[in-house]
């Protein structure tokens, strides 16, 4: 991560220090600002905004992308980027930086430069707002944020090397309809769907791109002993760290984003009472979903020969050689499951158009019991209890959908009965796996 930040900072510094880059950026910014001034009061169509984004991208990708750095005696990467992926080896010196991180850092640098120029060249936009209007300033900031989210996947598509010119062109062009569709649909969902979609598109592009190249540098000297070690603690505190604080610190940017998103959304809601608050909550919940289970690599993240079947018990087996008590481990898994289920409940609460949604939260907490039970069963490899918990989760969610679909005029029992079913199913699925939390019998491997 640190080399990627250095690389990003270096690219920005390079752009700032180079007169050529500054001139190009200035031209691009003036062009965009002029266009924006013309259409700002008349056309706020996402397509127009997207065209701005593409124009920035076209202007700036050439000046701060990989093409800006030439390798002495070997020509410019720019002219050979379509020839073959092997060229990336010399185009990018063997920095201690993965090609994926490098592409992302380049794209972020492009976005930062673009937005910096916008912020510099559009003070009139802000000054035109009514004095003291926080909402207007927030709106300006929000627009810039949306632009950043829009430009990022485009920049990634543009900067990623491809095996052929055709593939590169296809990928760069194919991202445009996606961004357009997203631009049109996003206003219906809320402003905070933008970063989510941007994240999905960016990650998808990075996965599809040929950025998993390996440099042909010999092994020796590529690692330091210090890089392979971290400060030892007692196994219990280390487990606590890896399960809870570790994922948070490892994903600190995501956590900060979630925090900023939620706080900003609360402010926006207090100012405008629009639905962006709701979608912001949804975004936060989903980010939490992504953050915690993936951070701890709870499921499907163990490698063993012959693959990892769902009820193979690989999670516990992978920890089995470590000085960690199994029941402590499983309690952590159960707590993660509860948290996960709780996040699902919060997310369910954010459906704005469902009449019975206030019921979803409390009953969803009951369903989270079965989610936690299913996680424990999967972690330890208990097929039957796991299937029971999963079935209970499905029943709970199915029962939850019923009151949500009812109107206020429906009889009380039609609401109470599904709630009772959901709560009972949640408990039925969540309680049996509890026997594992203090278990002392032969471990299944």
């Amino acid at each position, binding site marked *: 991560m640190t080399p990627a930040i250095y690389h990003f900072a270096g690219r920005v510094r390079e752009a700032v220090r180079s007169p050529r880059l500054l001139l190009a950026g200035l031209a691009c910014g003036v062009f965009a600002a002029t266009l924006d001034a013309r259409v700002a009061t008349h056309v706020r169509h996402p397509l127009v905004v997207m065209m701005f984004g593409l124009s920035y991208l076209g202007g700036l990708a050439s000046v701060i992308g990989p093409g800006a750095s030439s390798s002495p005696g070997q020509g410019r990467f720019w002219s050979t980027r379509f020839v073959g992926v092997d060229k990336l080896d010399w185009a990018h010196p063997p920095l201690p930086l993965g090609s994926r991180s490098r592409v992302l850092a380049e794209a972020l640098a492009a976005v930062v430069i673009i937005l910096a120029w916008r912020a510099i060249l559009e003070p009139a936009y802000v000054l035109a707002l009514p004095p003291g209007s926080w909402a207007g300033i927030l709106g300006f900031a929000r627009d810039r944020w949306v632009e950043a989210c829009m430009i990022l996947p485009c920049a990634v598509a543009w900067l990623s090397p491809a095996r052929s010119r055709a593939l590169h062109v296809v990928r760069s062009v194919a991202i445009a309809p996606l961004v357009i569709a997203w631009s049109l649909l996003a206003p219906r969902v809320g402003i905070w769907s933008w970063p989510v979609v941007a994240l999905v598109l960016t990650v998808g592009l990075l996965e599809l791109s040929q950025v998993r190249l390996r440099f042909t540098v010999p*092994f*020796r000297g*590529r*690692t*330091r*002993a*210090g*890089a*392979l*070690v*971290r*400060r*030892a*603690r007692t*196994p*219990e505190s*280390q*487990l606590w*760290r*890896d399960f809870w604080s570790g994922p948070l610190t490892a994903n600190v940017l995501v956590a900060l984003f979630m925090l900023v998103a939620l706080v900003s959304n609360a402010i926006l809601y207090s100012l405008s009472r629009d639905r962006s608050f709701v979608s912001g909550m949804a975004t936060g919940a989903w980010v939490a979903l992504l953050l915690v289970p993936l951070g701890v*690599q709870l499921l499907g*993240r*163990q*490698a*063993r*020969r012959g693959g*990892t079947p769902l009820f193979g018990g*690989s999670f516990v*087996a*992978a920890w*089995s*050689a*470590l*000085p*960690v*008590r*199994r029941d402590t481990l499983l309690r952590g898994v159960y707590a993660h499951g509860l948290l996960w289920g709780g996040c699902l409940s919060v997310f369910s609460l954010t459906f704005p158009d469902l009449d019975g949604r206030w019921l979803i939260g409390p009953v969803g907490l009951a369903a989270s019991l079965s989610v936690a039970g299913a996680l424990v069963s999967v972690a330890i490899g208990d097929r039957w209890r796991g299937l029971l918990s999963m079935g209970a989760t499905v029943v709970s969610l199915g029962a939850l959908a019923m009151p949500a679909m009812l109107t206020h005029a429906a009889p009380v029992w039609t609401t109470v009965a599904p709630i009772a079913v959901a709560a009972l199913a949640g408990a039925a699925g969540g309680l049996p796996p509890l026997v594992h939390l203090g278990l*002392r*019998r*032969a*471990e299944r*491997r």
Partner: protein
Amino acid sequence: MAADPLVQIAGLVVHRGRFTLSVPEWRVAPGQVVGVVGPNGAGKSTLLESIAGLRATDGGALRVFGCDPWGDPVAVRTALGFMSDDLPVFAMRIDRLLRTLSGYYATWDAALVESLLERFELDPRDRVWELSRGQGTRLRLVTAMAFRPRLLVLDEPAAGLDLAGRRTLIESVLDIVRDPQRSVILSSHVLADVERIADELLVVHNGLVVRAGRTDTLIGDRRTLEEALDAWGAV
């Protein structure tokens, strides 16, 4: 005065389905390489897993460093390295995996890890799920040895290893037992390797101990371990 044994077994009984492992009495002293040999299904892995605290026992006494490995896994596994060729490992890059594991051991030796990575020709930037079987075995060996455990328990460490890997394994095991306080227990079907490095042997068959004692005494000068196992009916 003899040093306290690292492993002490008396009347051990372990059930695994319909299979029963029974070990009347057995000790592992410090500074030894102990080979556990026997045919498939003899109970080697069951015994080693019990010693590592991965499997509960059903009778008798099993003490590792004076502790019950199942009841007090933290105390035992802090100083016991266990490796099995089918033990899952976290699916991440090797360097990140090693860094993650290092936090659990106060005795983690980063310099040793680096030298083991070179010795076993592992690239720390490789992803675990992309390793071949032999590379996976090498990685498991590295993780088991990295914290300089007092007792190293290796279950089929040579599985999937090529000749160079087996040589490196043997060198590493011999390095470990240069320290008189540390021991290695290994089970393997590569009998030539076991015969070459094991000071003591435990021969098991159908869950029963067939022979136990010093390797040279058990085998004798005029036959190989394979021939001896043939003679004992433990093949």
